């Protein structure tokens, strides 16, 4: 069942991506000042939203673990965080390549960029912490606490372009500005690409969760073998 769902999601994401890429390269008009490079936004922004959505889901799962103590919530949170870190890295790297052309620099310690980097570092720390602790309940409790703490930074990342007007462009999506900052056709493709990338992320989380379940099975079999 899980394999079928993963394959279904991958196929749907592939078809939607093909449709999106056709429109991104061949249908959408050019941006007057930036040339072709502006098209990076169609991966930069959806990757950022996918990462932040993942961190929010991981926050809910971590709170659920702290409330109910079920280790399944913990392994699901770990899987979601791992995939979210990957998409946050896509966001930072694509943003840096865009900045090299538009700002003339690869990186600057602007509030949005710095908070996004800190976010990746916090959640990479979360993944390293999990490798360092063998005892499952202690690992789950500390990871959940770190995830809750890390999500404070996610809010800062989200709001930083409203709170501090520095190098990074301000909000453009109409859900935040009420409209008028981006061409509706471009915005529609941003959302469509978000859906495609989200489907890929969900498929990866499903694969990762299966691996977490296998690791738990290995742990319990090892304990059983040691007891015998």
């Amino acid at each position, binding site marked *: 069942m899980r394999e079928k769902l993963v394959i279904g999601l991958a196929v749907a994401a592939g078809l939607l991506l093909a449709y999106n890429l056709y429109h991104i390269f061949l249908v959408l008009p050019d941006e007057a000042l930036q040339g072709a490079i502006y098209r*990076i936004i169609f991966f930069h922004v959806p990757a950022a939203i996918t990462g932040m959505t993942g961190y929010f889901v991981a926050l809910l799962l971590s709170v659920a673990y702290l409330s109910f103590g079920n280790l399944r919530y913990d392994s699901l949170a770990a899987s979601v965080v791992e995939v979210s870190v*990957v998409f946050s890295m896509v966001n930072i790297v*694509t943003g840096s390549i865009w900045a090299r052309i538009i700002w003339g620099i690869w990186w600057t310690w602007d509030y949005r960029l710095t908070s996004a980097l800190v976010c990746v570092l916090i959640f990479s720390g979360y993944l390293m912490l999990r490798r360092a602790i063998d005892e499952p309940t202690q690992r789950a409790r500390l990871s959940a606490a770190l995830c809750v703490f890390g999500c404070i930074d996610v809010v800062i990342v989200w709001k930083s372009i409203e709170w501090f007007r520095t190098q990074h462009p301000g909000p453009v999506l109409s859900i935040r500005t009420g409209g008028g900052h981006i061409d509706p056709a471009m915005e529609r493709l941003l959302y469509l690409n978000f859906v495609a990338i989200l489907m890929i992320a969900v498929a990866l989380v499903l694969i990762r969760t299966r691996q977490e379940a296998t690791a738990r099975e*290995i742990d319990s*079999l*090892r304990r059983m073998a040691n007891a*015998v």
Partner: protein
Amino acid sequence: MDARNFTFMFYGFLAAWLIVLLYVISLARRGARLKKELEQVKQLAGAGRSGEQARIEDRIR
């Protein structure tokens, strides 16, 4: 399509997919390692259980 900065746009798309691809490869490798480990531990647990069973049978005799 406007060809200005096309090379850097290509690098951006390449970098995005390369990061995802590297993660997928790492997932596949981890999956294969876990599968192998599970088989080994299952064999170990099976051997342990049959040894314990033999000891119990000896005691009964």
